[in-house]
């Protein structure tokens, strides 16, 4: 990809405008690997980033992929996602496992998956 590093050229002002100056309140629920799924199509007049997210997430797409696709920092992407989630336009499938919540079945599945690579 010849595109520059996302977000690099964005002035704080532009990012401020995108998010209406809000902080990340309400967006913490979105993990980097939370899978986002559109629940509706874009509608005319919608903020273009919101519309882009709805198009991107017709099939499950991780938050970090949405950020890369938009060319925006993850923190800004989370806020945009929270907007869409609040209005029911997307649903979020949050990760189940972490090393703090041990789940042997998941580890077994990962191992099988890796061995089959």
């Amino acid at each position, binding site marked *: *990809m010849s595109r520059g*590093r*996302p*977000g*690099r050229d964005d002035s*704080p*002002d532009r*990012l*401020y405008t995108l998010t209406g*100056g809000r902080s990340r309140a309400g967006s913490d629920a979105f*993990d*980097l*690997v*939370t*899978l986002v799924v559109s629940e509706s199509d874009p509608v005319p007049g919608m903020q273009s980033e919101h519309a882009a997210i709805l198009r991107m997430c017709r*099939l*499950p*797409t*991780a938050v*970090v*992929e949405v*950020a*890369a696709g938009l060319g925006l*920092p*993850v*923190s*800004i992407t989370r806020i945009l996602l929270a907007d869409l989630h609040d209005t029911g336009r997307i649903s979020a*499938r949050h*990760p*189940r*496992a*972490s*090393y*703090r919540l*041990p*789940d*042997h079945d*998941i*580890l*077994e*599945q*990962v*191992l*099988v*998956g*890796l*061995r*089959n*690579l």
Partner: protein
Amino acid sequence: MDSVTSEQRRTLHSTADNGLKIVVVGGFGVGKTTLVRSVSEIRPLNTEETMTQAGEGVDDTAGVAAKSATTVAFDFGRISFDAHNVLYLFGAPGQERFWFLWDRLFSGTLGAVVLVDTRRLADSWYAIDRLEHHGTPFVVACNDFGGPAHTPARIRGALDLADEVPLVMCDARSRESSKQVLITLVEHLRTVVAPAVRPVPQPIPEPAP
């Protein structure tokens, strides 16, 4: 409509619902992106996280704490295993100045691979310290850049690695080798994540005096 016939799966199954994370951390140019690329089903993508440090004085009228914003770039790849599970691999810089971002970036990660270049072992000291401090399970993978061969014992000594932390040699350019690094990590995770029912007890090696 993921009827992509090429070698690359561009979209996930509609049923995908469980994102998993593994972090590959290491010094500049140690091969993080190469390793991610070797096993990923997508070309590694690059993105960044910006953090505004709490508690910094916000003195401008806009109220945007842009002045104290710090940015860390990272790349990631993806492996989807089955209809539900999809693993994301993150390549992240291990330098000290980025670490305050990590809690946020990598909370909930399954574990980490510390990629090291044996010519520059000290570059990974800080990463190892932090992972130990966080209690994040990890393995150390030595990427072979053709430097002088060191014995595993010497590398362990230089990194002050705990006995139970696996140490493997790898070539990040090789898919098979990179895959083996990840398998080593997940096998290690199985031993540190206590199963509900303990398997047959293994003899515990005598700690070195």
